[in-house]
């Protein structure tokens, strides 16, 4: 090997070794760079990333409290909660992210049917502020088939999840909706009013009736939990939990059996029934017909169904028991009579000769009695038993507006008497002031005559008429009319016990002579049991005494000299049949107001319904059966003898 080449080689080796040192230098430099990056992330920024990591996996979730249950007076469940399955979407976890929502909805539509309205509501919820990776509800109450369909197709529907939930359920759907109301999805307007913290996990709120009035009690207090979730939002474990406080259970005076009977009696009719326990003021039944299903409103009614309800001529959504304004007609006669004698304007012996009409002035308008030819000599007792209009024209004319409206007000007309039904209205008690304000006219004598027979400007709701009946039955003793019996087992005497405003506090009615009550009572018993009582057919054969008063409200004024023919007038212009009453006549346990729209006369349309309800309340279903058995036995015995 020539020396020069050796030297060259030596040079080359040393150059290579220099390059190796360079490489080592670079390697150490780069490793140092990486290590300092790691030190930066793991030491310097450690706390920041710990927070980020915890934020990733930990989520604070609000837990909705379980809504309180509603029971009837006997402890039967009227409103409960049942397990339901909600279809939800997590927009961030959809296969194509948020942008693919329409595609996913279309794909879902191939698997199950999704209502247009659901999609609309879903999109609205989607645009509301929400936590990333939190599910947005699309459709409520999936059935088993739909759940199965979705689970089978789960693999091609990432981000679509079925979430279990508790949803309000009304076991007897239609029959109770006008008494209980219902809960529905919280809407934007309600959202603004509700406590956003307490309702952060709540989907439903009371919309109507008892559900609305007792929302605070029924709702409860929100709970919280810190959960560990994975990247797809699935909860791995619960780290910390503050239990929600469930809503309070409430018990109503409502008697499910009576309510159901009332609803059944009203089937196919338009009308309302309100029953009250006169010893407490508790509402035993409150039915309005036609009715509608409450459960469909809980999960979101379809627009088509809702429009059908809204546009129906029979107004099923309209709560006649609380909001229907009916001329009370002859049902106010006992009160008018009391007004006459207690104010001292007419004597207790006052009587008239009834030719079948009443004339204010000679050649003036004829005010007809319902009975052509008249009732002959009529005193107060007979005027109630036979419901003689002429007698009341006469005393109304003597009294004029003030004593009548004063006494009608004492009996609860013209004011909201029920404490815990927010929809209740005042209807109209036409004082002189009212007529001036609303009709821009002064009070005429003819107005008084109409008022005397419960027609004209006067209107009342079935609930008000039941209140009036309770005061008659109780001889003026008031109780707050209310649905609520107890909250969480604690009796509620009046709503101010639970911090609410009582309706205008009524005073007990004290007549100058308490024996006058008995006179009225006797007359009302004779209505049901007297030979000529207007309700005698409904009072016949009862094992207990009933007191009552029928009424027939004219829908149109009957023209002079026209003969009244119900069949010739369209059904809608037929008379409303009314009835108020209580049973047993002494120590009553139930007072009733029944109204059947366009049903014809009160004695034929309303009183028979009342009798059935009295039977259910007093004899009970069992007792009724027993009575039948006994009757059979008796028949058998007679045959034998």
């Amino acid at each position: 090997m020539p020396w020069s080449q050796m030297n060259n080689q030596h040079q080359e080796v040393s150059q290579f070794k220099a390059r190796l040192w360079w490489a080592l230098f670079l390697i150490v430099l780069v490793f140092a760079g990486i290590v300092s990056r790691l030190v930066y992330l793991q030491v310097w920024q450690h706390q920041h990333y710990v927070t980020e990591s915890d934020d990733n996996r930990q989520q604070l979730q609000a837990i909705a409290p379980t809504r309180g249950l509603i029971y009837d007076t006997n402890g039967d469940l009227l409103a409960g909660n049942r397990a339901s399955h909600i279809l939800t979407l997590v927009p961030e976890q959809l296969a194509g992210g948020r942008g693919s929502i329409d595609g996913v909805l279309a794909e879902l539509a191939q698997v199950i049917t999704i209502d247009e309205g659901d999609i609309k509501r879903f999109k609205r919820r989607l645009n509301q502020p929400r936590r990333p990776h939190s599910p947005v509800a699309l459709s409520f109450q999936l059935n088993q088939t739909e759940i199965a369909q979705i689970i089978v197709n789960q693999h091609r529907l990432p981000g679509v999840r079925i979430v279990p939930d508790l949803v309000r359920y009304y076991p007897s759907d239609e029959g109770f909706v006008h008494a209980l109301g219902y809960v529905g999805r919280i809407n934007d307007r309600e959202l603004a009013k509700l406590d956003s913290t307490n309702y952060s996990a709540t989907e439903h709120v009371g919309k109507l009736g008892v559900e609305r009035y007792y929302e605070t009690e029924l709702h409860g207090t929100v709970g919280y939990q810190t959960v560990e979730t994975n990247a797809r939002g699935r909860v791995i474990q619960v780290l910390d939990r503050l239990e929600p406080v469930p809503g309070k259970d409430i018990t109503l005076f409502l008697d499910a059996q009576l309510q159901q009977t009332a609803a059944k009696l009203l089937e196919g009719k338009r009308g309302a029934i309100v029953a009250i326990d006169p010893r407490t003021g508790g509402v035993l039944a409150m039915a309005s017909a036609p009715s509608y299903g409450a459960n469909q409103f809980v999960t979101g009614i379809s627009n088509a169904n809702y429009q059908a309800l809204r546009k129906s001529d029979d107004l099923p959504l309209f709560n006649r028991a609380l909001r229907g304004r009916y001329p009370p007609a002859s049902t106010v006669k006992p009160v008018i009579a009391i007004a006459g004698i207690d104010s001292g304007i007419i004597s207790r012996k006052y009587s008239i000769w009834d030719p079948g009409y009443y004339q204010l002035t000679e050649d003036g308008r004829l005010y007809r009695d319902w009975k052509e030819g008249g009732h002959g000599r009529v005193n107060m007792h007979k005027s109630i038993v036979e419901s003689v209009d002429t007698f009341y024209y006469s005393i109304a004319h003597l009294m004029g507006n003030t004593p009548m409206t004063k006494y009608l007000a004492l009996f609860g007309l013209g004011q909201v008497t029920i404490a815990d039904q927010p929809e209740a209205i005042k209807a109209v008690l036409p004082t002189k002031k009212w007529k001036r304000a609303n009709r821009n006219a002064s009070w005429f004598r003819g107005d008084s005559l109409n008022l005397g027979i419960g027609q004209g400007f006067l209107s009342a709701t079935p609930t008000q008429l039941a209140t009036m009946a309770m005061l008659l039955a109780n001889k003026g003793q008031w109780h707050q009319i209310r649905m609520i019996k107890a909250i969480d087992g604690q009796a509620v005497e009046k709503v101010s016990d639970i911090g609410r405003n009582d309706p205008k506090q009524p005073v007990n009615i004290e007549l100058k002579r308490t024996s006058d009550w008995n006179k009225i009572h006797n007359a009302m018993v004779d209505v049901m049991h007297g030979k000529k009582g207007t309700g005698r057919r409904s009072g016949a054969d009862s094992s207990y005494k009933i007191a009552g008063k029928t009424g027939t409200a004219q829908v149109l004024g009957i023209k002079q000299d026209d003969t009244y023919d119900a069949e010739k007038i369209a059904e809608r212009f037929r008379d409303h049949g009314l009835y108020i009453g209580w049973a047993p006549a002494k120590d009553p346990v139930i007072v009733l107001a029944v109204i059947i729209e366009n049903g014809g006369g009160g004695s034929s349309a309303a009183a028979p319904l009342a009798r059935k309800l009295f039977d259910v309340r007093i004899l009970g279903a069992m007792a009724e059966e027993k009575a039948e058995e006994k009757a059979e036995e008796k028949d058998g015995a007679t045959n034998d003898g």
Partner: protein
Amino acid sequence: MGLQTMADFQRWAPEARRHLKKGPGLWLKLKLDPWLLLVLLAIMSFGLLVLYSGSGSSETAVNKQLVRYGLALLVMVIITQVNLRHVQRWIPLLYIAGLLLLVAVLLFGAGAKGAQRWLEIPGLPRFQPSEIMKLVVPLTVSWYLAGQPRPPKLIHVIVAMVLVAVPVLLIAKQPDLGTSLLIGSSGVFVVFFAGLLWRYIILAMALGAAGLPLMWMGLREYQKQRVITFLDPESDPLGAGWNIIQSKIAIGSGGINGKGWLQGTQSHLDFLPETHTDFIVAVLAEEFGLIGVCVLLSLYFLVVLRGLIIAGYATHPFDRMLAASLTLTFFVYVVVNVGMVSGLLPVVGVPLPLVSYGGTAAVTLMASIGLLMSIHARRPQRI
């Protein structure tokens, strides 16, 4: 011979006598380097531990990986038995065959996620020709430059660069940016160790910087997106930026000591992607903390150091350049992967050597280690 040489002889003589008496050691007979082997086994063991956690406690994954390690070690042992002097002349053939396979991939290859990387030849297990090129390219360039005077003349450098560029472009076309970058750098390293003059190096760097915009235009849309995401991961936190954000959170939340083995929330709750493949180092950092990553990096550093020492001992220019290039390529592997996962570099699909789940990369890596050992076993003995 000068005085110096005499002194050397006197110093070495006793040891040489001992050597002559005992003959070469067991390791030398096996052609294996115990130091390198020990460190690699340590990396593999540590890797299996992390893999078990990263794969969601999957024993199947660990078992499969064990089999791959066995296969890779076998390949390494076989390659160490080969004397490079004897096979050197076949290298150009190997290169041409490799190019043909790459062309075949582009024409008939199979693939996933829009990339054609695999070749299925009946009778053979399906494989990635680009993996073979990881060895063939440094072999070829080393072979070529070993036959030229050193430092290489410009024309030789250009030829060498062409030899590198052809397979690199073919692989980039698949597209497989990570692999083509690694292969490209392995070729460049050979040129660097051949003694490329500094002025050329500086010139190349300047040209490279100027050519960056051109390269940008040559990138595919998804590749551009990766670079954008790298520069600003928050621009798309739920999309492309998700991976890098989550991996930084995993690393950072691990702290110095880590959350403990199997205790990583980022990985076990699926916030972290690809926990058993490309992002496995984030699992390590989350569960074993800074200490754990530093232990692994130190092991890698020992491999690199040993590789450089082997290159330093090698006498044949071919051996020298090859050993140094393979060592640096191994280093680049580590840096690109860790740099990517820790947010220092854009996301390129490069696995963590010997730790990430996957067989092909492990076999190729151990084959290159085999080459290193083969070189070292045939170094001139100090007698």
